[in-house]
């Protein structure tokens, strides 16, 4: 318990730093700032800042600048353009809705996922009757995901108002969960379409694909829905950022990492399918299911460990 609180404090401090930084330095884009901020923590300048590094494309094309880009390997940033942008107020809209992250904690790790995964695999029915097994685990997942999401929601509440002692979820919150649940189930439809676009077999395996997308949506989106509630003020902007991967400090955002992990795991899950080992578990969509379960868990754990790392750095510096 003590460790968790310590971390929370650390993060609260860090987020304050973010705000200060933003006030001081308005010349740069706000995304940049936040990344600089994170890089201040982790001394890891290259990857992230470059990732969010968008270059303006001027209509006056000049191959010379292109050339410089290449030889130095870095995009030259038109300072003037950035200033103009800042003045135009694109940065301000971002300020309004910062995506707050929950402090990383052991409690946020979705322990139920590996357990469920184990129960699926040890059972063995998934190899014989995939549809039935996947349906059964889906119902198990629903039950546990509901509990998990309520817990996560509680934690979010606790962290936003650290002074107020919560006496458990209120009725409204239960109502919210019961509404967000069908929403995340409905989210499985776009996920299903995405699967189809990625080359999922259309036809006889449709039901399986749909169950898979329902699983993925419960793993990846349901917890997010409970942290970043759509009833919040800035829900629209926040979700926009979440969906377009414009989350600053995403490495510290455990829930978000877990969702991303679920999706990436699912992506990686296709790898064993073409192999000619003739194993039962190579059937569609078992590997993807395993991938998303494992990915979500690994993502969450990785984010937690990263949080510990940042904390130790932070302590050293202060």
């Amino acid at each position, binding site marked *: 318990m003590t460790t968790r609180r310590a971390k929370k404090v650390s993060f609260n401090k860090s987020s304050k730093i973010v705000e200060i930084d933003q006030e001081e330095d308005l010349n740069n884009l706000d995304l940049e700032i936040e990344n600089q901020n994170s890089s201040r923590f982790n001394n890891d300048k290259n990857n992230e800042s470059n990732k969010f590094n968008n270059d303006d494309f001027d209509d006056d094309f*000049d191959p010379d600048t292109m050339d410089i880009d290449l030889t130095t390997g*870095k995009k030259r940033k038109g300072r003037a353009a950035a200033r103009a942008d800042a003045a135009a107020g694109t940065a301000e809209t971002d300020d309004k809705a910062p995506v707050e992250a929950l402090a990383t904690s052991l409690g946020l790790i979705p322990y139920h996922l590996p357990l469920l995964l184990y129960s699926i695999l040890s059972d063995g029915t998934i190899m014989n009757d995939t549809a039935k097994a996947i349906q059964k685990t889906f119902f198990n997942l629903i039950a546990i995901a509901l509990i998990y999401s309520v817990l996560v929601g509680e934690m979010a509440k606790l962290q936003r108002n650290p002074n107020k002692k919560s006496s458990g979820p209120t009725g409204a919150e239960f109502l919210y969960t019961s509404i967000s649940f069908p929403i995340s189930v409905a989210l499985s439809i776009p996920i299903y379409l995405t699967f189809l676009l990625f080359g999922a077999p259309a036809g006889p395996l449709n039901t399986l694909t749909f169950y898979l997308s329902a699983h993925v949506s419960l793993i990846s989106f349901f917890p997010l829905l409970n942290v970043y509630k759509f009833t919040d003020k800035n829900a629209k902007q926040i979700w926009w950022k979440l*969906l377009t991967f414009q989350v600053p400090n995403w490495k510290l955002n455990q829930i978000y990492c877990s969702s991303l992990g679920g999706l990436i795991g699912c992506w990686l899950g*296709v790898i064993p399918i*073409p192999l000619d080992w003739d194993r039962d578990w190579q059937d569609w969509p078992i590997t993807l299911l395993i991938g998303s379960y494992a990915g979500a868990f690994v993502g969450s754990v990785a984010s937690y460990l990263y949080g510990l790392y940042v904390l130790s750095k932070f302590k050293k510096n202060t």
Partner: protein
Amino acid sequence: MILFAILQTIALTFFTRGFLLSRNVLPDLATCQNQQSEILSKLGKSSKYISNSSNDSCFHPSPFKKTVILVIDALRFDFTIPNPNTAPYLNNFPIFYDTFTNNSENALLLKFLADPPTTTLQRLKGLSTGSLPTFIDAGSNFDGDTVWEDNLLSQFYHHNKSIAFMGDDTWTAMFSPFINSSICYPYDSLNVWDLHSVDNGVIENIFPLLEEQESWDVLVGHFLGVDHCGHRYGPDHYAMKQKLLQLNDIVEQIMQKISDDTLLIVFGDHGMDSTGNHGGESKDEIEAALFMYSKQPFFKHFDDPDNSIYNISNGGENYRHVNQIDITPTIAMLLGIPIPFNNLGSPIAEAFQGDKTGYSIASMLTSSQINNYRLTSNELRDDELLNEKYQTIWDKWSEEILNENYQKIWEQWSKIKSKSESNSLLIDDNYNYQLSSLQKCKEKWANFDDLNIWIGIILLFISLVVLIIYSKLVPSVVVYQLNNQCLMGSFILILVYCALSTAFSIVFKPQGLTINWALLLGVALGISNGILAPIMDRYSLFWLLLQIRENLVQNGWTYTGMLIIFLHSLIFTSNSFIIWEDKIVSFWLTTFGFLAFFKSFQQKEDHKKYLGAYHSFMFILFTRLTSLITSCREEQGGKCVSNFKISWWSIVLLYISAIVLPYIIKSFYNVSYSYQGAASLWIGKAFRSVLFLIAFYWTLEYIENDEVITAYLYIPFTKGAKLTIARTAIGISLFVGTIGWTGGPFCVKVDLSETEVLDPNPSKIKKKSQAVKSTEIQKVAKILGYGNVYGSSYFLFFLNILAAVMLVSKPLGGLSLFFLVNQLLTLFELVDILNIRTNLVSVVVMTLLGYLHFFTTGHQATLQSIQWETGFMFTETISFPFTHLAIILNTLGPFILIAVAIPLLVIWKIPPTKKPITLCSKIVENSMTVLIYQTILTLVTLVMTNHLRRHLMVWKIFAPRFMLNALILFLFNIILTFISVGYSSVNAVLRWYQVFGTR
């Protein structure tokens, strides 16, 4: 760049030479004396089996004076046996099995297992020499050389037998010195669209010859109809039924016509797979039928009470089979000529069992011949185990002969055989010996030349390193100054290295590296050193290492590109991934689209956000739609359903795409107001009409082949019309188009805002072109399409090539190319929006698009999937440039298009610049990146193919993939160097200055 092309070609040649080793051919000819003297002398003088020089026969009195050998190309075994199922290819060739069961003493039907590669030339070689042709020969199917190795036909010739021949002209290419030229009727073999002319030619000529039996001793007929029918329609087609029925009839007639001392042999040289193609080693491809018939009772089958030997259930799955080369000693001995010197086959038991001692002698003779061959051959001589084996056989044989109980040998053996007990009797020993020597040879000839392989791999690796240094690490400005130095340095160093390596090869005489090859090696080393020398002169190694970190990585996209390259290389480590490469490639492309979709939301301007998202969504959608077109390879099995056929709906879709495509291109042009000037003529009229011509061509093709339509309607002119259309279309697209394009179309329009008149005089425009200045005339000149000057005009050139490739692609392939254009255009927009013009990822995605469309235009990385029939679009017979051009355009079309489109990545949607050189250097850099990508892939295939060379699937999966990669690399080198960079992009970029002048 030319230097790179040469360097890589040399590297590939070395590897190919090492990997695809050909067999050592022994020139010795077998003669009667050396073959039988030893064995038959033991028989004693009283024996009736000994031959003497007055007798013209080698073996014991040969039962047959004449033989008729009919080859029915691609006659699969299950075509010839009764089958409860119904299909056009089943139960339409009953004559073999009927004769076999009704007159069992006169006829013999066996399953005939061909050795891969199952191509006709290789099979004929194998059949006639009794040995195993190696893989490299497969490529020479089109210019079959004369077989000088000892073979059946040369033996016939040397024993004064006159050979008559009619049918497939592969035979005349291989055996023309031996065939009696007055009775030789060859027909063109490779026109697979022509089912009947070869067969009719054979039929026309064979019956007169059967009437006058004196003029020939050996009659060879080669029917191609079944094979062509398979290639063109697949086995499951009504044409196959007609063909089989026709041949059934012919064979029946021939059986009646032959004389009593004639042996009739009918066989298929290979089978065909379910799509009608062949070349690989699947069960369907290697199983052919062998049928022997004589009017006098001669054959004796094995006792088969429980129907286990000649078992026709399950399509003859467990039917007794013999190897294809087994026919060689059999024919030789039945006709009394020596067994060809290089033979490795064993005699077919049924053909010799009629005579009680025949089989034991035949089998001993064969063993002795094989032994003789092995002892002559350097590489086979030292196998002690086999030599010992032969020694025991020999001892046993001598013993038995002395006891004069060789009759008993056979009696015992046949008894035991029917009880299927294990025994170590002489005949089995012989058979074992023959089999194991065959086995040994198979292993031996899959031997590789390590030295050449490693030279190839290392050279390719060097070329990769040099490429990376040259194109990525050294600043492109410097490269231009260095170019001349590099060229000079290379020339000088080539001479130096050539001298060195020649000296080396003369002094040390290393094995497997003759002077010519040493010279090539010298050239390769000279080039790589020559390029590196000026670079190393300026920069230190350490500096270059630092540059790697800085230059190679630009941002997250570069990582994505690297990840894809990395994964794509990993593919070649596993046969299953290579098999499913088509799906994997489309998965990656979708991933790119997906990332681009989210990435575009990070743009700052709203319209860019949504445009980017829209384009990436369309990109994904097109990719998905394209990947719906499937043409499966055989290993993909039941999980893949081919839909790559010419069907009515594909024709309809082709028409639709002909209507829609110009509109789509127009709308993309309109984004930058470039649909001006030449564009409307080019795209709206010329391109569209060519597209309609193409669609019409395939409609005719469809009509001509459709069962229902041809039944009611006979259109006589389709053939001529098709040729005319194809020639017109290719003429317009390649020749007229290119000439027109060189003349210089611009997609700009000069609008004078007051007078609204197009000013034809360029000298006036020159002054006003760069800016909207008002001069003393008070007119404002506005150039429409200014924002995309280069791209729009270059794209017209791309369209020329596109039309040519579309013409030779089958309808669904055309559809796939239609999607390719859309994908490319959306990709260019995306690249523009995301600003990843020279980024690694955009080039990688382009190349992946090439791969995707290679697969969706009905190809796979196998020899069987080459669509040979497209070679006959422009000409009826094989004529050098056109047939080859069509096949290359068909097979590698998507890669050609991609290579041509690479410069567009840089020049799409940019206004004119003041420095064309920088622009050109960008283009060169992107082209180099393509080469780097493909070199990495090829390098990995080389290494993996070499590493897995004992893998079960080497010849089926890895080796064809390696050949494809090597071909693509070669092609990219050529196209990028000479066309994209050397000709068209320079042309497009510099044209602006010629017309409008520099400032």
